[in-house]
Structure formats: structure tokens, C-alpha cells
């Protein structure tokens, strides 16, 4: 009999597992895939290391900082700041046809960029910053207000609104077209006010730290162990049954599988509503280069581009949408001398994609469309960056199908369902949600999600986790 069974060995499940095991619970993490990480994972192909998911760790704060989500998860998980080996970004940009706004981990750069490109909005932007700084522990109702309508009240130039929304939506918005105000505030803080960083070794370093700690505390991890269903008796989860038929009894079940996905696992729920599943999925084209991107004049860490004044954020009708995307170079962080350990350059291009269209393809069509959209995504991206295409020495690509395989989220929805369940509760008193569908995104956010639900299990319902934490 376990104290807690956790479904999914992603960032949130691992962080929850560490907290629970630290406080002497008997914990087992079940992972359907053959490796840990979920959305944020890693693999090796043709002698090269690749990351999935992570472009950058958001929510960066410097060593010694006592405030903010990063400081908080380090304390809660008992890691030293150095153990995540975070190196700051070189600088990023929001690129639209006629305006480019640079930003880095110091909000003053974005302030001056806004003042230069939108002189009339200088004061309005300050007002927005103080609105976001005031934001704290929103309840579910305030959280779900429309970010677009609140922004329209504060900022006059619609182009600036579109530009500010672009990175925040790209890095964590499960809703189409509009965004929850609460989610906007969280993303705005984590991207523009705290900022980007990355360990030289990528996400594997963070995952290896988490799993090593979890195991050293006596936690168990079972890979290739998909959960077939959650056994429910009299309004109470009593355990899980694996795809293999094996049964595990547990006092609590913590699921990072997603809200709809978790409801479907419960054997007392006959009808989960598939309409509530998220629709936003991506392709990513990954290029290894024979040089550093900066040698080609590309020294930006992340470029969020959009080729018109209106930023489209919805499921494309075609296989992919080439109007907006993200160009990320893992080389362009301040690694110092250690950069030499990255012999090649990497550029990753992420663009919106339609899950159904990709899954409807036959195997032959799938391979063909991958090639076609790979080339198109590069063609689209080089409108906003130096043309690196003649330096590509190896490629890989993931599609919504790949994301589905790694995350098991319906529709390969990267940020989960549009409707979030902030307190993680379900219809069962001992079944909780953590991860993307609890409203936390990004690596730090995901860990915070797992931590807050674990604390709730440890302390009882009086200590509600709060989404603003």
C-alpha cells in the first residue's frame, strides 16, 4: 500500500514525489513512457543531444534572491541554487513586421524599447507593470477574466498589445485567441520581469537532479507503466490498475495526466467531456549547425515572431500555421568559457500545428509532410533571423503526434486544457491534479504545481495551494 501514487514523471510529478518522500511517505511515480520528463524531456540521436520542450527556464532570479518562484522551489526541494546551473539569456526579441522589441532579464530594457517604439504608451506601460506587480492570489473568477479586454483598458495601441501577448501566449496559453488574465500576469512576470536561463547541459541536468533526489529519499519510479484506470470505490480512489493488469493500492492519487485525461481514467466517470481538451499543439524543427549561431549574426536567445499586426493564436486549419513562431538558440545563453563544450550550433523553430490533421495522415504522407513543413518553417523563420539554412548539418522534428506520445495529452495540447483547475481538486476527495491543467506552466511553474499539491496532501485541506505562488 502506497501513501501516494503519482501519474506521470514530468516536472510536476517529480517535484511532488520529492516533497512527499522527504516527509516519509511511500511514493510511487508511474510513467507511461520509457523515459522521464513528459513534455520536457531529452534524447540522443545520431550522436547528438536534443531537448524536447524546454527552450529556456523562465522565472530566472539571480543567486541570493529570496523572492520569486525559483527561490521558492529551491527551498521546497532543498536544492542549492548552483545545482540547476542556470546561465542567463543573451537577450531576446518580439519581432513583428515593422517593430522589433528587445528584452532581457532586466525589465528596464523592455521599458526603454516600448518608450522608443511606442512613445505615447510610456506611462500606460508603467501602469501595466504596477497592475501586474499588484497581482496576487487571484481567485478562479478574477483569474479567468479576459487579458485582452484588461489590456485594452490600459494600453491604447493595439499593436503593442499584440506584441506583449505574443511571447506570453507562446509560452503558456492553453486558450485560443484570448488568455486568462491570471495566466497573463504569471507569464508576464516569468518572461519579462524574471526572465530566461538555461543549464549548459539542458533539461537533462534538471531532470537528473530531480530523479536522483527522489530515489535517494526512497521514492519508486516505474517506467513503461501506463495507468489503465483509477479504481474508485464509494467516492474514493483506492488505487490504480496498470496497462499490464498490475494493481497498486494507494491512499492518495496525484495525476499530472491532465484534467480530461484523468477523468477518463476514473472508473466511476462514464462521460468525460472531450470538448474541454486543449487544441493548441506545435511542430518543432530542430537544426544542428556547423557553426555557432552568433557567427552568422544571430546572437538572440529567443525570437518570437509574427508576420502581421494581428497575432493569431488558435488551431490552424492546415497542418501548420506559418505566420507566427519561435526561434530558439540554446547556444545563446551566457555560458562563458563553457560554450566551447557545445561544438555545434542549434536552432529550434516552433510553430502552431493541428493535431487532427497530423494524425489523419498515413505513414507515408506523414513522412512527406514532415519534410515539407520542416522546410516551410525554416523559410518562415529566416524572415526574422539571419539565413542559417546552408549551415544545417543534421535535423530532427517533432509534431503533435510526438507531443501526444510524450505527454499523453489529448490533441497533443502542449499547455493542456483551456479551463484550469487551480486548486487541483477533483470529484474524489483523495484524487488531485497537478501540472499544466492546474494552471502552472513552464519548468519552474510545473515544479511549483507539484509542490503545492504535495503540501496539501501533507498538511490537509486547510493549506490550499494558490496559483499565484
Amino acid at each position, binding site marked *: 500500500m502506497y501513501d501516494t501514487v503519482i501519474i506521470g514523471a514530468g516536472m510536476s510529478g517529480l517535484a511532488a514525489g520529492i516533497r512527499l518522500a522527504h516527509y516519509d511517505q511511500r511514493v510511487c511515480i508511474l510513467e507511461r513512457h520509457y523515459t522521464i520528463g513528459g513534455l520536457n524531456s531529452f534524447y540522443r540521436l545520431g550522436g547528438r543531444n536534443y531537448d524536447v520542450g524546454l527552450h529556456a527556464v523562465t522565472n530566472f532570479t539571480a543567486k541570493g534572491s*529570496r523572492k520569486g518562484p525559483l527561490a521558492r522551489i529551491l*527551498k*521546497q526541494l*532543498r536544492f542549492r*541554487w548552483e545545482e540547476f546551473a542556470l546561465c542567463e539569456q543573451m537577450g531576446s526579441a518580439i519581432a513583428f513586421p515593422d517593430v522589433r522589441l528587445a528584452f532581457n532579464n532586466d525589465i528596464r530594457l523592455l521599458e526603454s524599447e516600448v518608450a522608443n517604439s511606442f512613445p505615447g504608451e510610456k506611462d500606460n506601460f508603467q501602469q501595466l507593470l504596477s497592475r501586474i506587480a499588484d497581482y496576487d492570489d487571484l481567485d478562479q473568477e478574477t483569474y479567468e477574466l479576459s487579458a485582452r479586454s484588461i489590456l485594452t483598458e490600459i494600453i491604447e495601441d493595439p499593436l503593442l498589445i499584440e506584441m506583449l501577448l505574443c511571447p506570453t501566449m507562446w509560452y503558456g496559453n492553453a486558450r485560443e485567441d484570448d488568455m486568462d488574465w491570471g495566466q497573463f500576469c504569471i507569464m508576464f512576470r516569468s518572461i519579462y520581469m524574471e526572465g530566461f536561463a538555461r543549464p549548459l547541459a539542458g533539461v537533462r541536468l534538471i531532470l537528473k537532479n530531480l530523479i536522483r533526489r527522489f530515489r535517494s529519499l526512497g521514492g519508486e519510479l516505474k517506467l513503461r507503466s501506463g495507468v489503465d484506470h483509477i479504481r474508485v470505490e464509494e467516492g474514493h480512489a483506492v488505487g490504480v490498475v496498470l496497462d499490464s493488469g498490475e494493481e497498486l493500492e494507494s491512499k492518495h492519487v496525484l495525476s499530472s495526466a491532465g484534467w480530461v485525461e484523468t477523468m477518463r481514467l476514473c472508473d466511476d466517470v462514464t462521460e468525460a467531456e472531450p470538448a474541454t481538451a486543449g487544441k493548441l499543439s506545435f511542430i518543432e524543427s530542430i537544426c544542428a549547425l556547423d557553426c555557432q549561431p552568433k557567427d552568422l549574426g544571430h546572437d538572440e536567445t529567443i525570437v518570437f515572431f509574427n508576420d502581421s499586426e494581428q497575432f493569431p493564436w488558435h488551431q490552424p486549419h492546415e497542418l501548420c500555421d506559418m505566420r507566427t513562431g519561435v526561434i530558439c538558440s540554446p547556444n545563446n545563453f551566457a555560458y562563458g568559457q563553457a560554450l566551447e563544450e557545445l561544438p555545434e550550433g542549434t536552432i529550434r523553430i516552433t510553430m502552431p500545428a493541428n493535431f487532427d490533421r497530423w494524425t489523419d495522415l498515413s505513414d507515408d504522407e506523414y513522412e512527406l509532410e514532415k519534410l515539407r513543413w520542416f522546410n516551410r518553417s525554416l523559410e518562415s523563420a529566416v524572415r526574422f533571423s539571419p539565413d542559417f539554412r546552408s549551415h544545417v548539418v543534421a535535423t530532427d522534428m517533432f509534431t503533435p503526434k510526438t507531443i501526444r506520445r510524450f505527454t499523453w495529452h489529448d490533441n497533443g495540447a502542449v499547455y493542456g486544457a483551456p479551463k484550469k483547475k487551480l486548486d487541483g481538486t477533483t470529484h474524489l476527495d483523495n484524487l488531485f491534479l497537478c501540472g499544466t491543467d492546474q494552471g502552472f506552466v513552464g519548468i519552474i511553474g510545473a515544479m511549483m504545481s507539484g509542490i503545492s499539491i504535495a503540501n496539501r496532501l501533507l498538511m490537509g485541506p486547510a493549506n490550499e495551494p494558490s496559483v499565484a505562488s
Partner: protein
Amino acid sequence: MTRDDIRETIIDILSDITPDEDLSGLDDNVAFREQLELDSMDFLDIVMELRKRYRVQVPEEDYGELASMASTVTYLEPRMQDLEKV
């Protein structure tokens, strides 16, 4: 446990929670919240560590007693004096 043992126990817990913090200059009469900027999650952690290490239960209505080192030691003294330091 003596008052000094209890103080040492709390220092031990704090250095676990905030490994990057230098606790040698801690002022016992100034609130943790001010000196170390501890937040509510950290206070819960102190409570949970006490429960884990010494089976001492701090009910929620008493969390305020843990504001500073001095008040924490005074609050815990009657609850921990019969315990052996681990």
C-alpha cells in the same frame, strides 16, 4: 532538550530549507520573515520538519508563535523539553 538544543534544532532546519543562507548572524529577536524573507510555505516547512524529526505537532492557530527564533524557542520549550536531541 534545553533551550540551546531547541535553538540548534531550528538552525538545523533553517539551513536545510535555505542552504544558500548564512545563518551565523541571525538575530533571535527579529522576525524570520524580515531577516530571511521566509514566506508562508517556509513556515509550513518548519512545522513539517518538526513533526518529521520530533513528532511535535504545531496546530495551525499557533503558527504565529514561530515568528522569530526567540518566540519559537519559548513556544517549543514546554513541548520539547522531555525529548532527546536527534
